[in-house]
């Protein structure tokens, strides 16, 4: 459960970075500058569409455990996190309202969610980050940065209890901040979760029903609409 919350803390940071289609003139040299770029650019995009591959790397397993899906965010406070393989599930959030659907036997079922509070908290964090409010991040993490072929922000939890679950969180960016490459959550025992993003599209107009918490639009229709955006 802690990992769940921590992971979303990472995702919200990612969102802040990814929600931009501007190109920075040069890679910032220090954390403060990068954070300022974060804040500046997070305010520019009204929406973002991203496809992801999530790899859960456990030392025990010979191969990573993979899932694939899409993440959609629309300002000010809508999010859709959908896993499309190897199973299908949709998590939706808007302000304090959250919903989850599971696809089985040819139809979607709305779940009587067991952990709605966690998802609700995530949404509030996401909303704050999309509005460029970085205070929570700097309050909870010590942050360092490296630049090169990509910019990597490494965030170490200040809280010892949280560090017992997550050793660090890495956000990998392109040098010009134009795209988020991946997010890596490192655990103290060497296990990690890596989320790699691709096919980003910004300021897209999502079709009606994309964030509907009773009958969400099928992802195929969203992809078709998004792919028509230049």
């Amino acid at each position, binding site marked *: *459960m802690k990992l769940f919350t921590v992971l979303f803390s990472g995702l919200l940071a990612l969102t802040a970075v990814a929600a931009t289609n501007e190109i920075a003139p040069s890679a910032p040299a220090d954390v403060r500058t990068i954070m300022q770029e974060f804040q500046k650019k997070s305010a520019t995009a009204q929406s973002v569409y991203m496809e992801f591959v999530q790899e859960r790397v456990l030392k025990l397993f010979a191969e990573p455990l993979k899932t694939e899906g899409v993440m959609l965010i629309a300002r000010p406070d809508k999010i859709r996190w959908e896993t499309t393989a190897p199973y299908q599930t949709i998590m939706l959030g808007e302000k304090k309202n959250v919903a989850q659907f*599971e696809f089985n036997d040819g139809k979607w079922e709305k779940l009587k969610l067991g952990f709605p509070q966690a998802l609700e908290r995530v949404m509030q964090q996401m909303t704050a980050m999309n509005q460029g409010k970085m205070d929570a991040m700097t309050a909870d993490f010590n942050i360092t940065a490296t630049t090169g072929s990509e910019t990597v922000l490494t965030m170490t939890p200040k809280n010892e209890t949280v560090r017992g679950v997550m050793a660090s969180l890495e956000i990998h960016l392109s040098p010009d901040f134009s795209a988020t490459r991946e997010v890596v959550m490192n655990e103290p025992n060497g296990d990690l979760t890596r989320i790699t993003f691709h096919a980003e599209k910004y300021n897209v107009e999502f079709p009606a029903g994309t964030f509907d918490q009773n009958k969400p639009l099928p992802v195929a229709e969203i992809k078709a609409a998004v792919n028509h955006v230049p």
Partner: protein
Amino acid sequence: MFLKFLAPSLLALVVAGCASPPAPKQFSPALTPFPSECLVVQRVMFNAIGRQFPLNGYLAMSDTRGKRLIVTESFGGVMADLLIKPDGTVFVMQSSRMFPAHYMRSLMATDVQYVFGGETKPNHPFVTMLTTNHFVVERTGYKLDLRILETKPGAQPDSMFDETLVKK
């Protein structure tokens, strides 16, 4: 907060589940054909106290080394980690507030043995096999809807079946 509530609830469910089993259904673990060495990837819906908890299950199986089940929430956080040796000895490698060790030993291990083989009794009164990759485990206190997404043949590392490597 919710987990604080759920854990004792599960304890109550465990007791209730043992006390009043539902009507027997015919299911034989001998009918579940799995390779002697494999990894079974599952999507599980755990239903309890009127709520649904979607989980992922990863079961490494070896006829000679045992079974190792790792249960995670959707984002990979480990909720339960269980090792069952070929002789039936159960080791709780990692428990959680949602799945306490006593629950894992008494019920989770039994369910694994019934669904994935290893149980010597001919029928399991709690398990229904709807298809070869879809099982329902229904006890008085909870219900599991278990779907097998993929079965990957092949041996998993020895460390998978080493009970001495308990996560601290």
